[in-house]
């Protein structure tokens, strides 16, 4: 059964003098517990697509269903990590992380312990009372990740969550996120520019093309790779094969190198 369904979703951005067709006829369906990666050139509408699924941007036509009901704005079941961290500079790290529970007026005393545990898991200790201004880009990104995870959403939308991290931290966090999501059978959509990351983490990979944004090809990640943790996927013999195929598809669609 489909958990998330997009049915001919199209989106235009309008300005006073013109419009941009950011997405055209996107149809896809994602199963409960499935991990999907979105790859594509800059400007092909990946962030727009996530914002639509999160109910923050209203698409111009088509339908989006979550568990067979049309998505409503700001569904608590959806956790969305934006492309930039947008931590509130006037809140401490802990207050930033706990903004979700605050909005939902949850006064579960265990949530604070959970927040500090998650911060520790992503390698951030002793900064709970600091302000975001004193953190590096990579640290801020991890805080934003914790902010999204803490809310315990049914589906996670992650927009380039590891882009500001050094390679080692990135590999560690991929493992952490991947195993956590698998353990709780959560559904996730990951936007990334890193083909390796997509293969290492996802069950399926959607490659998009730009102008207008469309899905050009879907790759199934072989079952052998899916069972491994992201770190060991990269060493699997089948990894390189898939990598080359995805690379070729992207090369095809980009024509000239993006950016």
């Amino acid at each position, binding site marked *: 059964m489909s958990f998330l369904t997009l049915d001919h979703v199209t989106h235009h951005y309008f300005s006073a003098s013109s419009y941009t067709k950011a997405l055209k006829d996107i149809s896809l369906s994602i199963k409960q517990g499935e991990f999907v990666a979105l790859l594509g050139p800059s400007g092909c509408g990946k962030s727009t697509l996530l914002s639509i699924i999160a*109910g923050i941007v209203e698409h111009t036509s088509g339908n989006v269903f979550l568990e067979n009901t049309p998505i409503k704005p700001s569904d608590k079941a959806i956790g969305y990590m*934006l492309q930039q961290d*947008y931590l509130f500079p006037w809140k401490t790290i802990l207050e930033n992380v706990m*903004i979700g529970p605050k*909005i*939902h007026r949850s006064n579960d005393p265990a949530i604070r312990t959970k927040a500090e545990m998650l911060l520790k898991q992503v390698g951030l200790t002793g900064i709970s009372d600091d302000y975001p201004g004193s953190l590096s880009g990579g640290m801020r990104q991890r805080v934003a990740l914790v902010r999204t995870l803490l809310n315990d959403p049914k589906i996670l939308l992650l927009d380039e969550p590891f882009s500001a991290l050094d390679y080692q931290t990135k590999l560690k966090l991929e493992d952490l996120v991947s195993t956590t999501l698998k353990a709780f059978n959560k559904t996730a959509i990951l936007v990334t520019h890193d083909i390796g990351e997509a293969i290492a983490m996802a069950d399926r990979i959607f490659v998009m093309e730009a102008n207008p944004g469309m899905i050009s090809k879907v790759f199934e990640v072989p079952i052998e790779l899916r069972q491994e943790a992201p770190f060991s996927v990269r060493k699997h013999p089948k990894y390189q094969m898939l990598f080359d195929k995805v690379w070729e598809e992207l090369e095809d669609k980009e024509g000239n190198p993006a950016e």
Partner: protein
Amino acid sequence: MAPETNTDNQLFQRHKYKLKREKRIVITWQLLLLLAFIGFWEVASRLYWIDPLLFSSPSEVIQVLFSNMADGSMVKHIQITLFETIAGFIIGTLVGILFASVLWSSTRFSKIMDPYLVIMNAMPKVALGPILIVALGTGYVSIIAMGALISVIITTLVIYNAFNEVDPNYEKVLKSFGATRWQQFKEAIFPATLPAMISTLKVNVGLSWVGVIVGEFLVAKQGLGYLIIYGFQVFDFSLVLSSLVLIAIFAAIMYKVVERLEGWLIKSKT
């Protein structure tokens, strides 16, 4: 390691010393300038370079201040003017922020109101003085209203603009957690515009003094504005200048208090 830290520390000390010295030089010059001004004023008045009847002299001003302070009459005038100014300042600022929030809550309403706000902003508020007096009486109420009125529209406009300039992605983050519009306001819009609000506070200090003094010109039987008009009518310019000196001192104190408030708020919020 040890010797290196030592020189680092020495450099730091030298840097601190330099800053301190620079500050001392600036303050010395500021004081010198003030003394020179007062000295020149006194000498010019004594030697009749300027008409002492019109421009008085520092010694005269000080004498007037002391004698009026001693019999307590000046204190009364200062109290009433300060009360009116602070009340006008606070009411004008709070109502302005409230109006801005109402405008923010409905984009359509704010578009409808736009031309009226522009007109009200362009209108010289003191011209409404006579109407206020008829409506609210000749007491301190209409003077406070004047002090508030003069700052309320500009506060509304400035704060509303600041609300709109907050990065919409902060609202996006909150929306993704299901925040209501009120929660977005409370968690993002309001705290993000705090610095803008403080800077309007600084502008409003000056504006409410204008409103209150003009109000006192028009009706008051008490207050520093009244003293200025009274001194003018009986041709006692030492009294006029004494009141001016007092206004300058208290306006500067109010400004400094707001500045302190700013430092404190910014420190506790970032």
